[in-house]
């Protein structure tokens, strides 16, 4: 494709047109999917734009974005701080792997939502509690990717470093870590995405009255679906922007790789 930009715009445009037609024609009501005509579902694009404008102007949206990014950062930083060392440890030492792996395999399938009661019990209705829920979602991709990166190291690189005089510690810092950096970075990028998806779970139980994840069920409960849409779209857009920024950083930082 010579001009993917054009196709991208086309795709988004098409979605908007279908959305608006669906909204204006009230087809969901006539099909019986929506029971009340007054619900106006889906909301029209102008009504969503108005909701967005309204909450930007009164600061609700901006504060919510700020709070959600803060919760994400708490969880993500914690996930990296714990996931990377634990991944290196289990990738490096078979014994550590045997001890830690069963615990991880049992914890991993438990969804972040299920941790809400524990988060409330341990941390109360605090930002840390929201960060903890995001941490649960973000932790495993960092851990698993770091583990695979370290485990996959070319043993000859390690031997080479040793004949060049490296101690075990230097092998770790000068060979193992840089070698597994691409996998680790990929893991962190996945975690960024998963963590962001956990924002709703992290905020829905009310650690604060702001937050993209708090506002969506809040506006849903009072049937203000144009606001729900505005917040959902914001969630999606910010997730997309963060991922793009991370990808740029990644390809620049890891430009030594053969295939980019």
């Amino acid at each position, binding site marked *: 494709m010579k001009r993917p930009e054009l196709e991208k715009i086309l795709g988004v445009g098409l979605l908007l047109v279908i959305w608006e037609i669906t909204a204006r024609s009230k087809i969901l009501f006539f099909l019986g999917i929506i029971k009340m005509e007054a619900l106006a579902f889906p909301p029209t694009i102008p009504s969503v734009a108005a909701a967005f404008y309204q909450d930007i102007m009164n600061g609700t949206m901006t504060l919510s974005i700020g709070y959600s990014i803060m919760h994400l950062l708490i969880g993500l930083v914690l996930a990296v701080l714990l996931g990377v060392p634990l991944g290196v440890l289990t990738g490096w030492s078979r014994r550590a792997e045997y001890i830690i792996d069963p615990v991880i395999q049992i914890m991993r399938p438990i969804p972040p939502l299920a941790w809400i009661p524990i988060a409330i019990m341990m941390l109360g209705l605090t930002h840390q509690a929201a960060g903890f829920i995001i941490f649960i979602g973000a932790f495993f991709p960092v851990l698993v990717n770091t583990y695979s990166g370290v485990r996959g190291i070319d043993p000859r690189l390690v031997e080479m470093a040793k*004949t060049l005089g490296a101690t075990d510690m230097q092998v770790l810092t000068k060979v193992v870590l840089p070698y597994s950096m691409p996998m680790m970075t990929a893991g962190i990028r996945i975690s960024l995405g998963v963590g962001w998806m956990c924002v709703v779970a992290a905020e829905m139980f009310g650690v604060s009255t702001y937050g993209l994840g708090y506002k969506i069920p809040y506006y849903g409960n009072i049937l203000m679906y144009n606001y729900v849409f505005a917040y959902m779209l914001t969630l999606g857009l910010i997730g997309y922007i963060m991922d793009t920024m991370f990808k740029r950083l990644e390809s620049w930082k890891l430009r*030594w790789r053969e295939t980019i």
Partner: protein
Amino acid sequence: MLSIKRLTKRFDNFTALLDVSLEVNNGEFVCLLGPSGCGKTSLLRLAAGLDTPTEGELFLDGKKIEGVNKECGFVFQEYVLFPWRTAKGNIEFGPEIRGVQKDERERISQHYIDLVGLKGFENHYPHELSGGMKQRVGIARAYANNPKLLLMDEPFGALDAQTRNIMQGELLRIWEKEHISVLFVTHSVDEAVYLADRVIVMSAHPGTVKEIFEVKILRPRVRTGPEANAMRDLILKSLGTEIKKAAGLK
């Protein structure tokens, strides 16, 4: 001087080396030649301290080799460069590990970049370099660590014939300048005759020293000269029976 005394290496179900004794004198260029499975690579790994002998001992300048031998430079066929480091970064790895100051490291890497002919490629990453260039980095990295002995495991085996000839010439030029002993594993009789002061022919299953040839041809050697041809004949004869044996022929 590397001296190997009555070295035996057994793995679970086979004997890689049996009662091998040999010496590499200071500044000498020795080639190990033999069929696959004759334990050439095992021998290099033992000299590098990457494996431990089942029996026998190895000494480098009178010091027994125990644990990884940090005074040898290893050059692999597959280069084994650190892909996240530039050519210069690879060459500086050894000095960096040993805590050499930055200015001194710069001086060392510059010296070897010039010596191996990498000028202009210092800041390239390995994936941006050709095979020959990669091996230049590999050789410079080994030299930059100031080793007492260079161990080379078919370093030019992955290169095309022309590049291989060029690299052989380059290696001799560097070796004549730096004069560090080299133990060089190869499959190629031509290569051995062109490079070595001594050629050690090994036999396989188990790996033992079969015959040692002194190559007294003056350098620069002519690859197709009568002396080289005669030497090649001698070695091929010695090796021929080994290769047949290894291939299961009578």
